[in-house]
């Protein structure tokens, strides 16, 4: 070992107070390249060693902020730009929903960059060995001792003077540490590495060919692959490449008779009502009316609705104008739409639309009763009382 280059002179101390004092004295003596090793953080060491503020904070700040900006833009891109998805009825770009993820990513980026930055930059990463490793000095400072080394690279370094200096500081042991011979590992020689690479390529290729070409059998129970087209799937069969097809023009689905007056604001003639106002029909009409019509026209078709004032007000359906409409005209308006009212052809089927017409008639009659109606009701209620 005597032939090796001297790395440093190391000194071991018993107590944290002594090491603080030693570090302070070493700084005062003007040594620049020296280091302290302790089994646990000793408060006040940075100042005693004359170290300035660590720069790692800037790495953390920079990467933390980049993490925030990156993830916010990423969420903006995925949620609000590239593929819009409505979540909880919120706007696509809803910042409050993005903040938790932005916060987490900020912390993640800051933490990882601090850790990696510290190891890579401050510990000079590819160097996986250090002259102090595997020395008695390192064993002592990993236990209960406090160590200080003055490196031979220091401008003022003089082996004997440094040894005396450290002894005077109260070190119980002062020793030289030499740079160990560079170890070479046969394991990492280029020939062996190339052999490993070739072995890896050959093994992978052989495995791939064996499993996928030579021994490949289509499993008969592989039910997820079938000769059919799933929804949204592409297909080469059709010129436009889409697997999903529209029905042939002129196709009429069962129960979906086309409406002849569609798109005409004032049709010259209208259909006549094919339904009878039975209890069943009226109940269906009521249910559908309350679902589709009442939001604008109100529960009693008087135009007083929940949406009153927030939306163009739906007109009353119990006016004399609409009283005088034929059934077919009301059916026409539901089917075709009128003014701001859209067509409900696709939401409400034919049978339900006629049922709504019947129910609207009931509402109209309930609010404009004729003399005979009133007598009828009175008779009914008095007969109820009698029972």
């Amino acid at each position, binding site marked *: 070992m005597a032939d090796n280059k001297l790395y440093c002179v190391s000194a071991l101390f018993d107590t944290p107070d002594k090491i603080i004092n030693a570090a302070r004295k070493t700084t005062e003596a003007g040594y620049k390249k020296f280091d302290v090793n302790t089994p646990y953080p000793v*408060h*006040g060491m*940075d*100042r005693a060693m004359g170290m300035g*503020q660590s720069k790692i*904070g800037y790495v953390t*700040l920079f990467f933390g902020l980049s993490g925030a900006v990156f993830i916010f833009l990423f969420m903006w891109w995925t949620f609000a730009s590239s593929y819009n998805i409505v979540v*909880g*009825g*919120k706007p696509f770009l809803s910042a*409050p*929903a993005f*903040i*938790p993820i932005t916060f987490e990513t900020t912390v993640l980026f800051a933490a990882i960059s601090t850790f990696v930055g510290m190891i890579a930059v401050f510990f000079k990463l590819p160097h996986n060995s250090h002259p102090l490793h595997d020395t008695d000095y390192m064993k002592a400072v990993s236990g209960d001792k406090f160590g200080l080394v003055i490196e031979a690279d220091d401008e003022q370094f003089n082996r004997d003077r440094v040894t005396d200096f450290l002894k005077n500081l109260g070190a119980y042991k002062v020793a030289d540490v030499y740079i160990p011979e560079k170890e070479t590992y046969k394991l990492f020689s280029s020939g062996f590495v190339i052999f490993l690479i070739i072995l890896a390529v050959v093994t992978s290729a052989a495995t791939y060919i064996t499993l996928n070409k030579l021994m490949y059998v289509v499993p008969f129970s592989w039910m997820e692959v079938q000769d059919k087209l799933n929804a949204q799937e592409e297909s080469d069969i059709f010129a436009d490449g889409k697997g999903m097809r529209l029905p042939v023009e002129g196709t009429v689905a069962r129960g979906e008779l086309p409406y002849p007056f569609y798109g005409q604001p004032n049709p010259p003639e209208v259909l006549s009502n094919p339904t009878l106002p039975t209890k069943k029909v009226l109940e269906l009409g009521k249910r559908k009316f309350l679902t589709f019509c009442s939001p604008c026209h109100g529960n009693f078709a008087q135009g007083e609705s929940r949406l009153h004032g927030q939306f163009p007000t739906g007109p009353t359906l119990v006016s004399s104008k609409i009283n005088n409409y034929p059934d077919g005209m009301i059916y026409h308006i539901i089917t075709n739409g009128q003014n701001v009212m859209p067509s409900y052809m696709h939401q409400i089927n034919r049978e339900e639309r006629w049922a709504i017409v019947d129910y609207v008639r009931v509402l109209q009659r309930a609010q404009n009763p004729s003399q005979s109606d009133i007598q009828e009701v009175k008779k009914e209620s008095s007969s109820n009382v009698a029972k």
Partner: protein
Amino acid sequence: MSPNDSGYIKKDLPDNLFNVGGILLVVGLILGVAGFLVDSYRASFAYLVSFIFFLSIVVGSLFLVALEYAANADWSTPFRRVSEFLAAGLPLLLILAIPLMFNTGSLFQWSHADYIHSDKMLEAKSAYLNTPFFMVRVFAIILIWFFFYTLIIKNSRKQDETSNQLLTKRNITLSVIFIPVFAITITLVAVDWIMSLESKWFSTIFGVYLFAGVAWSSLAALTLASIKLKEKGFLHPAIKEDHYYSLGTLMFAFTAFWGYIAFSQYMLIWYGNLPEETFWFMQRWEGGWKIISILLIVTHFIVPFFYLLSYQSKTDLKKLKFISIWILCVHFLDIYWLIMPSMSKNDHAYSLSWIDFVFPFVFVGVLLIVFKKVAEKINLVPVGDPKLKRGLDFHL
């Protein structure tokens, strides 16, 4: 260790403190009474804002004292007396709450029987929200605090003479009991005084929200007071920048904590989007309140966060003093923002008024006078505390 060993020499605080406090108190009282005469409805809200601000600092300071004992911290021991003196206004809460007791009618809609009977939900709540029970709660909570304050402070002061280590042990036990009690009582205070201003509104995190502000502002008050005292040389000479750095980091931590809690509260309500919850935030997003809401986010979180991020700002006493004054002002703004929008109902539209700003004079005056009064007899450093030496030696 006898008191003389610590190196602390007791000096009397300047009489100026008493005079300034007295002037503030008298001016505040005159203007405050005028405010109540001019518009008692408005004045009771303005008084409530300042009352909660005062309560934050006195109870928060007691919490900090208890926290030091419970965590067995020694770095903050040289500052503990400053927190104790700030908490000395706590018994006065009993008196200062009285003007509010006479104005529950203006403050709380639930104190009106006809309003309660207008809504099933309020009728269900009236078992809790009714004036007699409210008053019982208010005084019970203050008395509980008073009880712990008396015991902890008595032990702490006795130690100056006896240097008995057993007193520290006793205070640790008391503090460990006090902290959960504080958690429950501060939640009740938040619910009773602030949340119930909107009888129908509810938010389960609200107590934590108030606590975040309470701890934040009492730390700022401690920092401000101890920097002022340090500058004039009243504190122990061995107190270094490192001690203030730790105060700065705690303020920084509570800045982030408040941001976290405030956002948690907002986000859940925003996501749930239920009308019975969102109206509270809608009130604060209308007209001029929108500006104050945005201002609160900037001044309560963004500015202190980035200001306190750097090492320099936490070790430079001038910078630290600036941010602690900032924090105290912003905490006042926070409470103002919590309370004042609830005023604009019953045809009382909101507009800025001089009445809002007279009561802080009263409470700041009270704090200064109490501080001076207590400091006359008691050491500004707990000289008998066994942790003091380690606390003074503290460095980063």
